[in-house]
């Protein structure tokens, strides 16, 4: 089945050829569509967000929408990808200044940046943490791939001297999942602005497995890094 606006779209959906060159009208339209999708999803979820609503908020026609995206889900996926890339840039930068020796500090800085993004862009955070895990198949795959990237980054903690031997393979997957879970819960309870208070706990979840815990209370050290 095809919609008239799909038929009228003169060119194939651009997302198959990648985003249009920056600065062009097409690029601006695409950004506006993604902004609109992000805001609407933050407000009413993927299920409650229609193409009609997106084009209205973005001030473009539905023909333009179909020139950029094959369907609604393709648009959501592009919005998710953009959010991850833009958050990821913030996460990577501190690492370049740090160096291996300061790995725990880098993790803490990265988590602080993540938490700040959630607090500053709750709609974006809702898309990535609340909607994506249960969204359509493509979004779900993206979400899980992002968890894997985060888990791989945490895995470097196994190189620390204090890291115990024989950690289960799933430690990082569970830590990334636990962090995403806590953030999602705050968003669902409309407490995005309080999410910064969780930073010590998030740091503990991320670093805890690699700190020597011979004696009880050693975990408190995770707060001190």
């Amino acid at each position: 089945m095809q919609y008239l606006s799909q038929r009228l779209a003169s060119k194939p959906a651009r997302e198959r050829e990648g985003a249009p060159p920056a600065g062009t009208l097409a690029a601006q339209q695409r950004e506006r569509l993604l902004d609109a999708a992000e805001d609407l999803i933050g407000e009413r979820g993927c299920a409650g967000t229609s193409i009609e609503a997106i084009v209205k908020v973005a001030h473009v026609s539905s023909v333009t929408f179909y020139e950029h995206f094959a369907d609604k889900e393709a648009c959501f996926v592009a919005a998710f990808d953009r959010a991850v890339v833009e958050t990821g840039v913030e996460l990577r930068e501190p690492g370049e200044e740090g160096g291996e020796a300061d790995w725990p500090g880098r993790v803490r800085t990265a988590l602080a940046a993540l938490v700040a993004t959630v607090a500053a862009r709750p709609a974006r955070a809702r898309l990535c943490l609340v909607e994506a895990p249960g969204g359509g198949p493509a979004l779900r795959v993206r979400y899980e791939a992002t968890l894997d990237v985060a888990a791989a980054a945490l895995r470097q903690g196994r190189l620390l001297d204090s890291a115990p031997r024989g950690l289960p393979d799933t430690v990082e997957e569970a830590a990334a999942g636990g962090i995403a879970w806590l953030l999602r819960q705050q968003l669902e309870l409309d407490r995005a602005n309080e999410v910064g208070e969780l930073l010590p706990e998030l740091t503990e979840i991320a670093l805890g497995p690699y700190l020597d815990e011979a004696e009880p209370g050693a975990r408190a050290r995770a707060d001190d890094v």
Partner: protein
Amino acid sequence: MSETPQIAGAPASGEVRLPPGRHGLPRTYVAENQRERLLNGVVEAVAEHGYEATTIARIVAAAKISRRTFYEHFEGKEDSFLAAYEMIDAHVRESMLAAPGASEPWPDRVRARLDALLDVLARDPAVARCYLVEPPAAGGEVAARYRDAMQLLAETLRPEPDPPDRNVEVRDQALIGGVATLIVRRLNAGAADRLRELLPDLTELVLAPYLGRKEAQRLAHPEP
């Protein structure tokens, strides 16, 4: 009908008097039976199509019951899903609490309860999807109900008495988030039959924050 569920108000099969109607079954039993079949239809439809794409038409088709009858029992999709969720949640928690070793020390109990959880979910992937995968994105009452269920699930794994920890609830959530993530990802990958392989990892995950890594590792891998 050899496995007729025992329903309150329905006489045991030997005592059935002459049929009051053409069903030959008391009205309350027929109603319960329809309701149960509809709930089963809800689980089938949601597991197959996802919550969002599930329609009343799909539910009644799966249950082989008329749309009119559906509305005699439920107000709509959310209402019917919540009823199914209630039953699944109660069943999962009962299975965990009834797990062998319930009277054992806390670490053994954790292991036994996680084993029971994985067993219930591995046995019926459709039920597992309805319990853990679909509700968070459903939003509204369903997502709220799911959050409550996960909190209760976390509490079944918490040491008793409550540890004197400033934020045991945050730790609960982090642990259950880890547990749920590992399970959900395997369900999404179609690997429900391998869920039980997660038992040592999940046990260690839950025990380590309280007992330290070494002790948690020892208890998660008991000598055969």
